[in-house]
């Protein structure tokens, strides 16, 4: 198969799969799930083959439409970055779908779930390969919409639909900023394709557009200030959260940062970094006080994406995006497996399966899941031998190197220090979670039995666990070295100084110690940034509109109503005039007058020729007199 047809296959397969699933919508058995999973395997194979065959950047264009002289073609562009993320999407999609076969087995309308997953994957792939900025924007919005559908999957649950609406609205706010940013970007560069934008100067226009792009990305990536939708979004089915709200969708903002990295100035990069830094620190703190297993992971996702943003959109961001994608998807899937296990043990749903205070001692009950969870957690902390270690080292190295010859050195220092604090924080909350879930004894009153996890859970977890191991990224356990995977993704590595490694060791040690000491004492609190302007915006707007409606529109109606009434009064007046003045005085009066005249004059009509002659001569004489005198 040629590269082009392979590409088209990859682009269209999820959509085709989604449309075909519509036909299976009313089937109650598992056929839809299997069908979708098989197609996701095909998609993964196609992606692998595509990556294997593609040697240099691929640029494709199909005619779409034009407006005046402006061409709107379907431009696609695939470089090593998008290729690597594409593979991540394909792998995560495969793992999640296999996992979902079992996890969603008992749902009556699970086919709908698979349709939404396919819709999401289709949009995400479109987003990753789009070169034409408006196609990029279109898929960007579609990604948000499919996230809405997934979150509201259990649509009879009020919390789920509220969360879905919130996610979509916050995303839309970001989308507006992105839209305006892209308008400016295309105005600044004069072209509509990312790949054809040539940088000469950044200028004011470029600066504003860069800032708007950052703001736009905060929505999709759940960063400060539009971060609060992601923890709520955990109302959706857990495997879908693994795919959408951990590995892929939320990294769209990072992808955007990577994409516009060469097109924007250093200050814009640092704006990304600062927004990321704020999110990184605050979300780490919020995660610390969470007792809900999924919400902790959601906050850790926000903070890790903040970390990617702190890579400013450079190769360091991409590196962490890839490693994080695997271990975070793994974490969510294992969390899903744990919830599934607890529900199975606790048939009557007596305890909240997501509350870590109800768990404990699970290591001996579900060993495969527990071990994989621990492996993923190591990645999250960034301990050596895990993939997270290398990407964090690389990121620290990049920031330290950049700070040395930049005029914004202070900002870089801020980022490096945030990174240091964040490492301690993430060590605390992650190890606390691991200790509470797997260590010690069962804390609830229920008796849990040892269970062999279903094969549908084991395959994806083991696959993701392997992908989260460090040796795939570097053979040297405590040092970065270029591996095949790194080469494939086109990442240039930056080594971090030795003092950073020393600091890291201290950070881990402090974190572990604190977690061990205070693991059961940290209170459960739902800290969040206050809901910012958006609910207020809606409420004030609605109030204002109702006010206007009641006052202004009524006044206007009143005015028109009175105008109409005035018209009626006027009409009555006219008709009165018509009856009495025109008809009464003029018409009837004139008829009367003419009657009188007539009766008077008729007397003159005596029928005598002589008198006629007399009158005629008198009149003629008068005329003559008038003219002569």
């Amino acid at each position, binding site marked *: 198969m040629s590269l082009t047809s392979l590409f088209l296959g990859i682009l269209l397969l999820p959509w085709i799969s989604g449309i075909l699933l519509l036909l299976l919508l009313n089937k109650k058995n598992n056929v839809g799930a299997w069908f979708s999973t098989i197609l996701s395997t095909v998609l993964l194979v196609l992606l692998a083959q595509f990556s294997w065959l593609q040697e240099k950047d691929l640029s494709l264009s199909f005619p*779409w*439409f*034009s*407006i*005046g002289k*402006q061409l709107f073609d379907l431009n696609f562009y695939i470089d090593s970055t998008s290729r690597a993320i594409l593979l991540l999407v394909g792998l995560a999609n495969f793992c999640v779908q296999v996992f979902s076969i079992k996890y969603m087995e008992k749902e009556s309308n699970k086919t709908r779930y698979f349709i939404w997953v396919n819709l999401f994957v289709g949009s995400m792939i479109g987003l990753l390969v789009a070169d034409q900025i*408006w196609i990029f*924007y*279109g*898929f960007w*919005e*579609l990604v948000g*919409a499919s996230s*809405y559908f997934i979150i*509201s999957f259990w*649509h*009879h649950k*009020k919390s789920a*639909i*509220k969360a*879905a*609406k919130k996610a*979509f*609205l916050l995303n*839309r*706010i970001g*989308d*507006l900023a992105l*839209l*305006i940013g892209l*308008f400016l970007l295309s*105005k600044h560069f004069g072209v509509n394709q990312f790949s054809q934008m040539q940088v000469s100067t950044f200028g004011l226009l470029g600066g504003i557009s860069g800032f708007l792009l950052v703001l736009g990305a905060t929505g999709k990536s759940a960063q400060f200030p539009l971060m609060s939708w992601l923890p709520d979004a955990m109302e959706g089915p857990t495997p879908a959260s693994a795919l959408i709200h951990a590995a892929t969708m939320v990294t769209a903002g990072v992808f955007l940062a990577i994409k516009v990295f060469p097109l924007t100035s250093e200050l814009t990069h640092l704006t990304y970094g600062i927004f990321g830094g704020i999110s990184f620190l605050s979300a780490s703190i919020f995660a610390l006080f969470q007792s809900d297993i999924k919400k902790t992971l959601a906050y850790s996702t926000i903070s890790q994406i903040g970390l990617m943003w702190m890579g400013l959109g450079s190769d360091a961001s991409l590196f962490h995006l890839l490693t994080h994608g695997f271990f975070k998807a793994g974490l969510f899937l294992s969390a899903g497996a744990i919830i599934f296990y607890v529900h199975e043990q606790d048939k009557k749903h007596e305890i909240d399966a997501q509350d870590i205070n109800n768990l404990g001692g699970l290591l001996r009950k579900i060993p495969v899941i527990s071990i994989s969870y621990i492996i993923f957690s190591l990645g999250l902390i960034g301990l050596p031998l895990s993939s997270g270690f290398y990407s964090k080292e690389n990121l620290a190295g990049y920031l330290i190197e950049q700070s040395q010859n930049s005029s914004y050195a202070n900002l870089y220092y801020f980022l490096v220090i945030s990174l240091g604090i964040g490492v301690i924080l993430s060590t605390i909350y992650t190890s606390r979670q691991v200790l509470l879930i797997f260590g010690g004894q069962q804390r609830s009153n229920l008796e849990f039995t040892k269970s062999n996890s279903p094969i549908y859970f084991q395959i994806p977890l083991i696959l993701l666990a392997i992908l989260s191991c460090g040796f795939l990224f570097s053979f040297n356990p405590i040092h970065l070295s270029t591996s095949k995977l790194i080469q494939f993704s086109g990442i240039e590595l930056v080594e971090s100084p030795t003092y950073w490694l020393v600091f890291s060791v201290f950070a881990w040690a402090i974190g572990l110690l604190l977690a061990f000491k205070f693991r059961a004492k940290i209170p459960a609190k739902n800290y969040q940034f206050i809901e910012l302007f958006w609910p207020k915006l*809606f409420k004030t*707007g*609605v*109030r*204002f*509109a*109702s006010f*206007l*409606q009641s006052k*202004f*529109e009524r006044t*206007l*109606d009143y005015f*028109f109503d009175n*105008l*109409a009434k005035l018209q009626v009064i006027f009409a009555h007046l006219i008709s009165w005039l018509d009856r009495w003045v025109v008809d009464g005085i003029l018409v009837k009066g004139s008829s009367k007058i003419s009657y009188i005249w007539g009766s008077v004059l008729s007397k003159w009509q005596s029928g005598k020729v002589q008198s006629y002659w007399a009158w005629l001569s008198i009149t003629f004489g008068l005329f003559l007199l008038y003219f002569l005198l």
Partner: protein
Amino acid sequence: MTLPILSLIICIPLLAALVLASGKLKGYAQQISLGASLIQIGLLIKLALGYQTSTATFQWVEQHDWIHFSLGSLGQFVAKYHLGIDGLSFGLIILTGIISSIAIWNSDSIKEKTSSYFALIMLLNASLMGCFLAKDFLLFYLFFEFMLLPMYFLIGIWGGPRKEYASIKFFIYTLAGSLFILLALLALGTSYIDPYETALAIDFIQPGQAFSAENAQMIQTAIANGEIASDKWVHSFDAAVFADLKNCYYKSILHPDSAWVLGNLSAREWAFWLLFIGFGIKLPIVPFHTWLPDAHVEAPTPVSVLLAGVLLKIGAYGWLRFTLPFFPKEALEFSNILSGIGAISIIYGAFNALAMTDLKKLVAYSSISHMGFVLLGIASFTAEGWQGAIFQLISHGVLSSLLFLLVGVIYDRTHDRSIQNYSGLAQIMPAYTFITGLAFFASLGLPGFSGFIGEFFSLMGSFNSQHSSAIWAILGGLGIILGAGYFLWTFQKMFLGKQYLKNSEWLLSDLTRKEKLSLYFLGISSLLLGIFPSIIFNLTDNWVSHLINQLF
């Protein structure tokens, strides 16, 4: 002899109306009107097959003398029966044909006086078609005015509880708009001189003889130099005459050099505003919109479909066809204000929609918001803005029809449209929920549906415009957030969540086959237009570039 297809398109519904009004075939009223409307669609297909997208000029032109009278020394007046289609009107007449037949198809809920109902629908269809087909401004005006009559009775007789109020309000507002247009029409008619007709009147050329641009120029200079006696001047209402400033008699108040000023505005500016507001009431623009929610709430479903789907478009059509070409400089001068009105319409409509508890009122206000994008696009004076505006007209025609039909589905079953009286409909009516979800997401501008393309290009045009401020584009952009707000809020309240009906006796059956047919048709049309926008853009592209070149 070639068939006068455009005349047939107007005559067939008129004929059907006559047959229906005679009342002889009472039991078959719906079938007759549906048949007439299908024949009309057949004719439209014939037009489409022969239509050439490569030119911006009128096609299938039909021209006959109609009114000719002399005013002595004031000259002569000519009004022509002049029909034609071009890139602007073609999409709209197809929309009219399709939406009419869909409205007729969904008229089952009308049980009383069916033959007069369908006769009026046919009359409405004929006058709508006439509006879009007329090349002569007076002819257009007659069709435009005539539209009032069937609409007034359709709301006033078959409407809801406050039908009298709504119909008279509709009547007054629209009549006020027509008066504005009439004033402008008279001013234009008396100030402009038709060179072709004048040439005929002075026997400069013979009927049927070609009339070149040089000839026109000769006549124009001759008039300006006073070489042609004023009783030979021929005033016509041809839109093409008004579009050429050289036809304006130099002593008339509409001439740019005229010193006539009233309240800081010249006569031309006044005339522009008269036309703008006259058509704006129809669109409607804020603050002349209050007739719309009332009319929609009281009108029966198929009439609402026609009202939102086609009638509103005439406002924007009037701007693009008449207002802008007649007064390009004035329009450009005020483009910033126009954009502002557009942006305010978007936001005001959206906030009001958010505040509504009546589903139909919500959709009506969303219409106001969506039509604001049309004004925003038009006021940008860019190719993409105009294309977006025209696209938005068609897209909104499809989507608002879909939305009003959906409101009709629930109203037919329960006679209750309050959003808070329903919850969790997804569990009772899955197919209805599916298509409503699709319609809502299409309307809030999800990429892949037509709503996105229209809004996107209107915004893009407004943003790139050199004549209006980018702030209006940004404010208009807020409309897309608010749009998501009210649609999602409604969807959440009515369709998702726990199942609840205010009245437990309500029997809510899912969509019937008949309902599904039209709903899916409209939904798929929106999807097709969203994925292949070139269906519309190919039609309008030449027309828009031609107009842009003409104006600048």
